[in-house]
């Protein structure tokens, strides 16, 4: 985007002196429907920030929501304080960040490694077949996946317990044992995204100029050296981009994974599976304290915005071209 702006600048400076033309009007008209959509579904909710500073009460039940909002008392930072001082808050923060850190590392290391491996398989047809099969989880919704998981993990009938018993072990009540869930969720996350991210990296690998490899072979480079000195450096920009995006989302989580796969994040395992998204969903669906709910989700948005901008700033310091903005 930065590149673009610098390129466009001299042109724009020239153009801005010229008058508003019929062309501009026509293009603006074409953009209006989408602008309206953005106003309603992206920008209107941003004003929810007001709600976070209000102690929303229905002042007059006959009047509209907006009337009540305007006439509710200001609450200052009370709503944010409430959320930050929740007993669960440190636990939720820890869960969200720890899961994300593990996911960020694995989401880069595993798919990149596997993409390099699969690009070296002799038979292209087999390689295509593996890719297609591994892509499937990406297209399954978490609801469907939660049934897959249930078939394996159900305490009484699950396949995994059947297998454990076959080998003489004891049944495990998976859905009520917190200690297994960090591993189960990490596994399920990897299971779902692995094929997809592998294919994305593979697409960049096939785009690498083959003459680089030919030159390397002539210089006597081994396959491992080629991967280390040609493939990885060529993938660097896309890896950095995926990394910034992931770091920017460090305070959010895949709600489906943490809520559907755990079958509603029940009380017994809540301490290891509750992330911000789960907590905020629970608040929104059970409590009518709009101010507190808004403060909780606003907190997540603001912190997320700060992290993505920071990550981007750091990246642009290191390598200007890999930055998002």
């Amino acid at each position, binding site marked *: *985007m930065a590149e673009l702006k610098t390129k*466009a600048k001299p*042109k724009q400076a020239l153009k801005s002196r010229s008058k508003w033309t019929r*062309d501009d009007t*026509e*293009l*603006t008209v074409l*953009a209006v*429907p989408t*602008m309206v*959509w*953005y106003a309603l*579904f992206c920008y*209107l*909710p*941003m*004003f*929810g920030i007001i*709600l976070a500073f209000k102690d929303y009460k229905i002042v007059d039940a006959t009047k509209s*929501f907006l009337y009540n909002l305007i006439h509710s008392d200001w609450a200052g930072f009370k709503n944010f304080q409430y959320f930050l001082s929740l007993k669960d808050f440190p636990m939720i923060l820890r869960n969200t960040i720890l899961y994300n850190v593990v996911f960020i590392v694995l989401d880069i290391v595993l798919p990149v490694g596997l993409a390099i*491996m699969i690009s*070296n*398989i*002799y038979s292209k047809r087999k390689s295509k077949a*593996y890719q297609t*099969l591994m*892509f*499937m*989880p990406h*297209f*399954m919704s*978490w*609801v*469907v996946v939660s*049934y*897959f998981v*249930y*078939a394996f993990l*159900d305490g009484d*009938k699950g*396949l995994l317990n*059947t297998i454990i018993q076959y080998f003489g072990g004891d049944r495990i009540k998976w859905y009520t044992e917190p200690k297994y869930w960090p591993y189960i969720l990490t596994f399920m996350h990897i*299971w779902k995204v*692995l094929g997809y991210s592998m*294919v*994305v990296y593979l*697409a*960049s690998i096939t785009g690498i100029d083959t003459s680089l490899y030919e030159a390397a*072979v002539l210089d006597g480079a081994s*396959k491992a050296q080629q991967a280390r000195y040609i493939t990885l450096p060529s993938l660097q920009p896309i890896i950095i981009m995926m990394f910034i995006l992931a770091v920017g989302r460090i305070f959010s989580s895949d709600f*489906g994974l943490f809520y559907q796969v755990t079958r509603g994040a029940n009380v017994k395992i809540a301490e290891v599976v509750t992330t911000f998204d789960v907590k905020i969903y629970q*608040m*929104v669906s059970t409590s009518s304290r*709009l101010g507190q709910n*808004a403060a*909780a*989700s*606003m907190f997540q*948005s603001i912190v*997320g915005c700060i992290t993505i901008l920071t990550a981007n700033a750091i990246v642009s310091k290191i390598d200007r071209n890999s930055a998002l903005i």
Partner: protein
Amino acid sequence: MSKKKAATTNDNMNRLNRISPTTNVLFNILFLVLALMCFLPIIFIFIISITKNDVLRTQGYQLYVTAETASFDAYTFLWNQKHVILNALVVSVKVTVIGTVLGVMLTCLMGYVLSRKEHKLNGFLTMLVFIPMVFGGGLASSYVVNTQILGLRDNLWVLILPLAVSSFNVTIARTFFRTTIPDSIIESAKIDGASQWTVFFRIVLPISKPVLATIALFLAFGYWNDWYQSMLYINDSSLKSLQATLDSMQKSLEYLTKNPSAGMTSADLKKAMPEEAVRMAIAFVVAVPIACIYPFFQKYFISGLTVGAVKG
């Protein structure tokens, strides 16, 4: 002739520069295992769904099914309860079709306008699309806006509108229009007196089928797989999509028996239901269409993702 020669040298090159046969076998085994791990669950679900309910109850889920333990009771039951499933299917199809058409339209219009650098509002619109990528109002305020201000609770449109546009898709469309549509085509059309409206619908859209397909697919799969909007905004069971029905069933299978077919009470129905098998049968029914369709569309997904990765 020379082409052929080049091809053979290339081949020799490839033959020279490849992993050892043992490594190749090891890699193949690794990927075979990974591929099976991704694919087998759907087979297991199917096996469970055709196993007799008594067997499931007493022995748990099994990895195999024999002629004695097989039964199609679950599917017969679903067939008898087809009004629930069919209704959900109609909702899913409606949402997917309307949403995809609307979403592609909105996305491409904005993508096209953004691709015109000479447009005076270009900077403003770029920011308009970019800001939501890094900052959002959050779940609570979206929920309040959708229910209180836009009045979308228990309304089919709440399943469609919020998912119609994403800045990611708009960026894909813009990058495509900017890189593949030559300015000269548009300039010449304008010299001939065409309005932007005509240029967009008569010239740009017809030659942009690849990007239309990519965005349509992203949207279609998104709509088809969505359960989150239903979970938040839909209580009316006649507006539940397939995914939402599956989701409600996870909480209680009785969901199905709330709407018994004529001549049956809920209690009768509950007794008749091969519970365990039905659960998995529905999951299978929801998963299979996608599992059969996606291989044909996979390449559009990949091309879309790589276009999206090109920044600018």
